[in-house]
């Protein structure tokens, strides 16, 4: 099973690849809406990418109020 740091690192890599942002520009505590410049529909894309990659189900209401990669990683880690 992934460690929390591995999960966080994979999320940053996936987000960078999907939204074509240089990986080095993304930091764990960044607000991903701002850093990635994404809207609500693109957030759903990110959620689907993450669910498919980690093979987990993450109910979207658990993401309410979540805006940084580290907290997001914690939500996924709890379901691995």
């Amino acid at each position, binding site marked *: 099973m992934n460690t929390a740091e591995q999960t966080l690192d994979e999320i940053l890599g996936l987000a960078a690849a999907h939204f074509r942002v240089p990986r080095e520009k993304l930091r764990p505590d960044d607000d991903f809406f701002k850093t990635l410049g994404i809207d609500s529909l693109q957030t759903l894309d990110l959620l689907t990418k993450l669910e498919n990659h980690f093979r987990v*189900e993450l109910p979207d209401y658990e993401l309410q109020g979540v805006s940084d990669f580290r907290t997001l990683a914690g939500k996924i880690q709890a379901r691995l």
Partner: protein
Amino acid sequence: MPGVTKDIQVTDGKAESKALSHGRGSGLSWSLADGVIELALHREPCNELGSASLEELEKFATALEGMQAKAHALVIHSAMKPGFCAGADLRELYQRSQAMEKAEAVKGVREFLERIHRVLNLIDAAPLTTIAAVHGVTFGGGFELALACDLIIADKMARFCFPELRLGLIPGFGGIPRLKRDLGNAVVRDLLLTGRSINATKAQQIGLVSQVVGEGEALRAARATAAQLGKFDRATAAAAKKFIKPIPQEELRREIDIFCELFARPAVQAGLRKFVESTDAQPYLP
């Protein structure tokens, strides 16, 4: 929405015929080739279903009745990047209902629902095999459109959701009776009462989606499936469908009644206003 009907371009030159093998409106277009009808949705931003879309869907439904003797399959897909369909046009619903007395607004909503039910019932019961090729956002009324089809083929980035409860409403385009018919009450309760969205993999696990394919591959897979369907006797396929897929008429009628009862409550206007005026980055989340 005056003008929409005129915007439909009939390209086969037989306007008097019901058998319109090609048509194009501002938000959708269709064509018939090799026994397969393809209906493409292309209204910005994500095929929201409002009065203009409904008028065009009604035009398509009329054409479908004329084309179905020459077709064995119907494929519905979206040309819009964000997804298959984000559901009802909530901005139009809010703005129109604000401009009317409550009783008049409820009457207008009932008429809209009855019209879209007629279209979706016709697709649901059409004597050809219908396939929704979906990607991305397949929410609310978009989910309900897909549920009217016999098969759902999903891109792995597709998501399905009934978000209506957050507005103080239930799905109104026949989604609950159709999902209950196809998958059962427990699945309806999960999606309806939590408002959560599920991805294509989960949707396949619960039996909603027949095939999950790679990104951008849903239409290709649907076309391949439609070609396969053409190998079977059309009358046999139609008889099999009629036997196994009854239209839940009573529940569909009841759904309209419940929707209209709920729509009359002030909480719905407040919910619609909150959605329309929201600057939240996640307005789609329940």
